């Protein structure tokens, strides 16, 4: 016998929520594919647009034609449109006419808040599976372990199981909020918001890679002597010392030297290496930057024009 009648009215709420969550998984599952591109279990992917699948780049360990299992069980081969290491995203192209019925519904990103109920939906095989939790935090700006900055990445209180990276984070109605990835933060469950995924997908489809402005320097923060800081009227005590300049790089062409201390870029103070990374990520390759450089005791301005970091060959 089910629990007493007294509790039956209350029981309806849980049962209703339960049913709704299962419905959300079913709705989202219609847009989740299995990607067979590594020795271990398959990874998950999301049909992001008509004919386009998005997944986590690190789970696709080969190039060329990638076997994909669609929600209806059909097996197809997708081709790689492009990868971006910084966001760990990959875009795959389905054969013409395939995937139209499976495009993922999108959630209203503005409705997302800390505490929102969310589901991670994956297909690490034939069938769809899920995990459940809440959005734990939505830090304004957050860095991957490599230093790349991602806006409004979602930190999750749920489990991203084996094969779930590349799958969808959905709200309680099954609409997609982002793409799950446990590799962005060395195991912490995170999801890249849909808007960020869109930007990356746009570029991957247009040019096969995401342009990343690149200078060709390695830098290290250094403390400047206070006498020098005072004499030069600097606003901060730490700056970035150039430790190496890559051959044939924008930094070399601009005339940067090992030992130069980078103090500001386009007027913005450079205190930490991430300040330089941020300036580069805001700029576009081809648009010059004015670097304020401390060289041999005096300040100079050096103009550099970042180039597009060449897309690295990955996978395979």
């Amino acid at each position: 016998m089910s629990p007493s009648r007294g509790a039956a009215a209350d029981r309806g709420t849980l049962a209703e929520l339960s049913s709704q969550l299962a419905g959300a998984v079913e709705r989202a599952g219609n847009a989740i594919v299995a990607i067979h591109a590594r020795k271990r279990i398959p990874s998950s992917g999301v049909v992001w647009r008509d004919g386009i699948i998005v997944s986590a780049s690190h789970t696709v360990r080969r190039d060329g034609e990638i076997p994909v299992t669609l929600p209806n069980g059909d097996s197809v081969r997708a081709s790689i449109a492009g990868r971006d290491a910084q966001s760990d995203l990959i875009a795959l192209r389905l054969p013409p006419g395939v995937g139209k019925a499976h495009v993922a519904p999108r959630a209203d990103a503005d409705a997302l808040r800390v505490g929102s109920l969310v589901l991670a939906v994956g297909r690490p095989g034939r069938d769809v599976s899920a995990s459940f939790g809440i959005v734990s935090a939505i830090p304004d700006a957050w860095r991957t372990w490599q230093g790349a900055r991602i806006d409004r990445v979602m930190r999750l209180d749920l489990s991203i199981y084996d094969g779930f990276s590349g799958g969808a984070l959905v709200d309680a109605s099954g609409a997609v909020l982002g793409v799950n990835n446990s590799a962005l933060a060395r195991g912490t469950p995170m999801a890249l918001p849909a808007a960020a995924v869109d930007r990356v997908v746009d570029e991957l489809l247009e040019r096969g890679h995401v342009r990343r402005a690149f200078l060709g320097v390695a830098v290290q923060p250094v403390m400047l002597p206070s006498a020098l800081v005072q004499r030069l009227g600097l606003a901060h005590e730490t700056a970035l010392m150039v430790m190496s300049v890559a051959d044939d790089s924008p930094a070399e062409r601009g005339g940067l030297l090992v030992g130069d201390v980078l103090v500001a870029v386009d007027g913005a103070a450079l205190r930490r290496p991430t300040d330089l990374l941020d300036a580069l990520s805001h700029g576009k390759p081809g648009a010059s930057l004015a670097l304020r450089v401390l060289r041999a005791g005096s300040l100079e301005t050096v103009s550099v024009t970042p180039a597009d970091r060449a897309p690295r060959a990955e996978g395979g």
Partner: protein
Amino acid sequence: MPSSFGIGRRASSSASALAQFLRDAVVEVRCGAAGGDAGAGTGIVWGGAGLIVTNAHCVARDAAIAIRSGNRTSDATLIALHRGHDLALLAAPTVRGPMLEARDPLSLRPGELVFAHGHPLGVQDALAMGVLHAVVPDARSGEPRWIVADVRLAPGNSGGPLVDAEGRLLGINSMVVNGLGLAVPTPLVQRLVDHALSRRAA
């Protein structure tokens, strides 16, 4: 801002009502290996009275088995052990509990709420909530072999019930693999119970 927090309150109170119900449906199983310290797991009162189902790994053939139900402790005897499915059937004549309804594993949908009740890490009567992750079929027969749940289980949960939002039994929690909770499906358990009882009667 939501106009009220009614749904949250109702969901919380029905979760605690479920916990209360399950408290009456489970027992603590303590098994003393010869001369050693007792391990503890959870057991389910089967068929309303006198029978306890738990995991085989919670008990040992020649050791004393004690059942704690509410405030009372009693002895239990081992009727049947099935190591392949990690199930054990115990007789505990004085133990009573509510009849649990069975939930057909084939009707389960990924994402639906599931609840595990037991005594994890020595904590008495703890409830964990999660969702169904998948139902894994037996490779040969195609019948449900494992109920896999996205739920946090710990040692001590073994032998306890995995139920749905309405308190219907999905299976017996048996192990954790890669963070996922695995339960032996109810039909499998029922089959073994029926078989053991018919052999006993014969």
